[in-house]
């Protein structure tokens, strides 16, 4: 599947296109098919996202899992500071990212 990601302009937070808006949780990311670029352009123009780009992801039971480790680290946080990730209490975070 293809999902769309970027950063919030004001806060810099990593965000994911849900189909209707932007969420900081990658589980909410929607499959954009071939429409990713046009959605990105529109959303960036309206300043609802900054520096968006389309990435490949696998659909899994827990939601989309970005294909590249870089985007998985973006999705959750640094592997070396699990306390700073979006899911500090989740022991499975390391496995999901790496």
């Amino acid at each position, binding site marked *: 599947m293809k999902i769309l990601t970027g950063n919030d302009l004001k806060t810099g937070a990593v965000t994911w296109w849900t189909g209707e808006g932007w969420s900081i949780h990658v589980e909410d990311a929607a499959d954009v098919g071939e429409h990713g670029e046009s959605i990105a352009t529109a959303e960036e123009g309206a300043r609802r996202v900054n520096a968006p780009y389309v990435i490949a992801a696998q659909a899994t039971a827990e939601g989309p899992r970005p294909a590249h480790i870089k985007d998985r680290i973006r999705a959750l946080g*640094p592997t070396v500071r699990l306390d700073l990730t979006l899911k500090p209490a989740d022991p499975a975070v390391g496995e999901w990212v790496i």
Partner: protein
Amino acid sequence: MYKYDHYDQAIVDARVEEFRDQVRRRIAGDMTEDQFKPLRLMNGLYLQLHAYMLRVAIPYGTLDGRQMRMLAHIARKYDRDYGHFTTRQNIQYNWIKLEDAADILADLATVEMHAIQTSGNCIRNISSDQYAGAAADEVTDPRPWAELLRQWSTFHPEFSYLPRKFKIAVIASPTDRAAMRLHDIGIEMVERDGQLGGRIFVGGGMGRTPMIAPEIKDFVTSADLLSYLEACLRVYNRHGRRDNIYKARIKILIHELGADEYRRQVEAEFAHVKTLGLDPPAAEYDRIAAFFAPPAFAADAPDTIDRSDPDFALWVDQNVAAHKQPGHAIVTISLKPAGGIPGDASSAQIDLMADLAERYSFDELRVTHAQNIVLPHVRKADLHAIWTALTGAGLAEANLDLISDIIACPGLDYCSLANARSIPVAQKIAARFASPERQRDIGELKLKISGCINACGHHHAGHIGILGVDRKGTENYQLLLGGSGAEDASLGKITGPGFDEDGVVDAIERTVEKYRTLRTDGERFLDTYRRVGMDPFKEAIYG
């Protein structure tokens, strides 16, 4: 250290308001991201992997307790309670919001700090020797020159849209503690026939095409230094490549023109620029130098150290260096604790270091390009008290220049440019060599890790270097041997095929063990490598 006068303060304050307005216009949509990007970069603000990242300038790595406390305050108030000290003597915060950036800069300005030109295609932070003002082998304190250059390069109207970033280092001793030869311009202040001046090296750098800077001018008098640099920069601005981002540094220009032709062009420009009256008078140097006068050292400070505590003695042997003033010493605080993240410090640790500086080091600290902190002017009699305080805060690792004193870029855990994670590799290496006795037996071994070819971890200059690459979507690590960022500068050589994360740690262990079997008395790893070459190590690594 330097203190702002009202001119310096007004300039920094105006910059804050200028950036505040630029942010306002960006958020309102008056500027696109493409138009805003160079402006925010020139204020050290990156859009990074997790959020905006802010790189705060620590000019030539020198700061006082009050400034250190402000860095801790920013970590607490605007970030996640820690900061990362970098290989260019700056500090980075990884979780910054754009909407807070101007307020952060305003807070910094209250203590004479800023984030000016810590990114962008302009002249960056002027770096220097972390032992400046304390080392016996210096000809003069290099930092007044670094401060002169800082002011000259700040908002330089001609050189703010260079082909690429520009990094300058200034030292004043034959020992190079600042990797000066690996900068775009490196300056060694020297004395010739009673005159002070600079030996100028141009065209060093790491990254994709590492180069050691050739000497371009063997002596420029201090009175002409700024004009000469102006000429060097103008030739670069006019003729540096702009067609390819990977060929845009000045090292490429010098490589393609040849050092002789570059020198000729600079001399021609210098002859012209010298007539323009751009050089400040000696009185300005004197004004700045007065801020760097030696502190009021106690003349009768005891020169002995009570070594009865064995752990303290080990720390003294490893982390304490000789000071030119009897009874005094230079302390390096390691930010490389076992299992920690190289160069990171919590706000509590930063506050503690501020306290120690105020109490024991004439209120002065330095950041080193190896991502450690120095207390430059400590009394030997106070060393035990300092060490006790550091021990309580996890800052007393006795590993300066040992294998666990690793330089590591933030890598893929933090950086969108990275191909691989670097911090976990550093942690695994430190764990493998955890035994302090083993580390001391190995001796000086400068290990440097970069998560990508941009080489922010200076891997080309590591006795052992590691480069993280992306190999078909997975992280892979190349091993290099024999680099050095000191006055004996050399570039590391790749051993052969790369490894996965555990594989590179094993390869390093085999390398180190091979060194131990081959070394003769007193040889560091680097010395043995230079004597025997790559082959024995290659054999040991790959079998």
